[in-house]
């Protein structure tokens, strides 16, 4: 038996035949009987429901909440309006990454941070350690259940559950008190799949009711449940970074190509600013590139990449892509030695397989 913390949707996953695994301490479905490939296809073509309750939530409130957060994140929160969401890395002073997070601005002095499950405790400690000014921190992770409704039909499913309009929630915006099936939820137009979609935050008490309501409303639109396996493939196809792969305390956000989320010229100084500025000036040794296999083989994390006589770097994430029907990977490569369309070699079980450097994202939605 696999053990771990149960989300409020645990019984729903069992009822759907989910294969449960322990992910960052949580019991979550890695896939359902229809299979990971079908889950990916259904997300791209219709709509899927993911349990993402393992994600952590931290409330940051107070008169100086914004100036405090500006010191903590690399992106510029002065550009973040109320009811909007901003993606940002959080760095150590040396430019290494603590985590990559979403910042929700509810009001001028009330923010919600959504952090990776694996980092939730570490993040809370880091934010606490750096706390200054008139700011209160609360770890709300135990109180929140979270669902991701992802796919081109997601708006229709969500709209059928509320009398309020959801079409006017713009990308990376949210409504903090949306009535969904009789429960108050925070609903944002965000996701980790590259599709249009929403993330729904609700209390643990309302969780089961909301799952049932979404499930029922979704049947008309071919809604199905999807697991962590599909989520990982979807984010890779959309070339979104995953902490522990493309980001870590040893890797900085510029290497991962996240320049537009790092406001180097931000007026307020932030953790990692000086180190990242210096790195940018001096030039990075390695940067993240997209690869597609030319020879048939599965590129996986940790495999080394080279050319005829040189080591160029390593693969950080790789998989079969059902959407493209190709084997794809993200890799940190010596960027002075390679460019787009170059042929490289991936070492798989001490044999060499040809691959080509291609543009990311591998997949971009066309609606």
């Amino acid at each position, binding site marked *: 038996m696999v053990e771990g913390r149960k989300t409020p949707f645990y019984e729903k996953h069992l009822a759907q035949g989910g294969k449960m695994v322990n992910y960052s301490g949580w019991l979550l479905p890695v896939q359902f009987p229809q299979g990971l490939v079908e889950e990916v296809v259904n997300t791209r073509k219709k709509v899927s429901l993911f349990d993402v309750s393992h994600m952590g939530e931290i409330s940051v409130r107070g008169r100086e909440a914004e100036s405090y957060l500006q010191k903590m994140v690399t992106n510029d929160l002065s550009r973040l309006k109320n009811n909007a969401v901003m993606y940002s890395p959080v760095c150590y002073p040396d430019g290494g990454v603590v985590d990559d997070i979403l910042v929700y601005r509810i009001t001028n002095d009330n923010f919600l941070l959504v952090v990776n499950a694996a980092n939730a405790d570490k993040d809370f400690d880091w934010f606490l350690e750096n706390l200054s000014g008139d700011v209160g921190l609360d770890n709300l992770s135990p109180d929140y259940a979270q669902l991701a409704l992802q796919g081109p039909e997601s708006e229709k499913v969500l709209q059928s559950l509320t009398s309020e309009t959801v079409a006017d929630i713009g990308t990376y915006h949210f409504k903090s008190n949306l009535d969904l099936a009789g429960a108050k939820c925070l609903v944002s137009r965000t996701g980790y799949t590259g599709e249009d979609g929403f993330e729904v935050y609700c209390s643990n008490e309302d969780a089961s009711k909301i799952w049932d309501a979404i499930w029922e409303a979704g049947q008309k639109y071919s809604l199905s449940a999807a697991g962590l396996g599909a989520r990982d493939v979807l984010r890779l196809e959309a070339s979104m970074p995953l902490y522990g792969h493309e980001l870590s305390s040893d890797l900085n956000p510029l290497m991962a190509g996240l320049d537009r989320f790092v406001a180097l010229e931000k007026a307020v100084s932030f953790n990692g600013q000086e180190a990242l500025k210096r790195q940018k000036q001096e030039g990075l040794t390695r940067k993240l590139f997209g690869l597609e296999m030319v020879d048939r083989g599965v590129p*996986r994390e940790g495999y080394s990449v080279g050319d005829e006589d040189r080591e160029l770097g390593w693969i950080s994430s790789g998989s079969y892509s*059902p959407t493209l029907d190709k084997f794809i990977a993200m890799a940190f490569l010596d960027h002075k030695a390679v460019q787009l369309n170059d042929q490289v070699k991936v070492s798989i079980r001490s044999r060499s397989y040809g691959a080509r450097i291609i543009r990311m994202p591998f997949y971009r939605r066309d609606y």
Partner: protein
Amino acid sequence: MNYKVIDGLKYTKKHEWVRLEESGAVVGLCDYAQDKLGEIVFVELPDEGAQLEAGKSAAVIESVKAVADLYSPLTGKVTGVNEELLDQPELINSDPYGEGWVFKMDFNDENELIGLMDKEEYEKFIVEEEEK
């Protein structure tokens, strides 16, 4: 969960099956293992003529999420490989005991067969595996 187990085949603890034919043995991956792996997307086959040793890796089977070795159940030489798997690795998912066979081999030591399980023994074995 009900996994398919076929009468008349021999089974290993690593979930390979062996079918004895006049010309030697046919080897593949059991239903239980293909289900655990999920959708298979790549198979690395042994070279024809390669010398295999019982218990050592003979082929590699990869699903979207995982890499698994297929171990040779017997010691002997590869006499044929299922090249259909190069283009359709998913045959192991859809028909693990039939079109999804992996390779054929000859073998010298009949005694190696004694260590393998029959249908009833293997069925008991996978029930125990599930309870772990």
